[in-house]
């Protein structure tokens, strides 16, 4: 299982901030996971449609679309940050 977290407007659009998913073995990178998640619902599809608007972290460190993901990882998708 991979723990997937969503924040800010991604969470609003998808309707949940956290889900446990078990994608097929060919989902081995952030980019392929993103594509697979986008097919889960219309809300997912819309929120995850434009990777350029998203940032990703794997196990709480920033990661690019080609970063590997595996069972047990915590993968988060969120908009560019606006703190401070």
């Amino acid at each position, binding site marked *: 299982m991979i723990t997937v977290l969503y924040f800010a407007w991604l969470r609003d659009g998808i309707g949940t901030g956290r889900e446990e998913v078990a994608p097929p073995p060919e989902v081995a990178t952030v980019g392929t996971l993103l594509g697979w998640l986008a097919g889960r619902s219309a809300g997912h599809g819309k929120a995850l449609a434009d990777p350029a608007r998203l940032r990703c972290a794997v196990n709480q460190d920033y990661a690019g679309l080609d970063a590997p993901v595996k069972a047990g990882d915590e993968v*988060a998708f969120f908009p560019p*940050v606006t703190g*401070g």
Partner: protein
Amino acid sequence: MIRVQREDFDPGAEMASFCAGDASVGAVASFLGLVRADKSAGGDSAVAAMTLEHYPGMTERQLEAIEQEARRRWPLIDVRVIHRYGRLEPGDRIVLVLTASAHRQAAFDACAFLMDWLKTKAPFWKLEETADGRRWVEAKASDDAAADRWTDG
């Protein structure tokens, strides 16, 4: 030292306890960020309140990494970063950064660096409430540019 908290902080008390009694400190720089009443990034309406969401765990991890990067770049005697989350109203404090060094330039530069990197790397998101409704604040290109100032090469 990094603190991520819902409750308010007292900048005066923080400054008083920061490096107290360490006579190697010649310079303390600080930055305090507050919620502005007139600040609506995306509309004409005044901000009635905002909610700061964050990613617990990653926030602390990223802030600690930013503190370590600042300590690597400048000879800092101490660093303190306090960032709040939750619902905040105009005039409320959001963030406090304190840096101490022997010399003023290191303290100033490190303080500005911490704010610039925090703005673009620490996982916080602002949800504004105005008379027109609620909206997620968009990241600003000027913040990216400010952070890029500190990138080598």
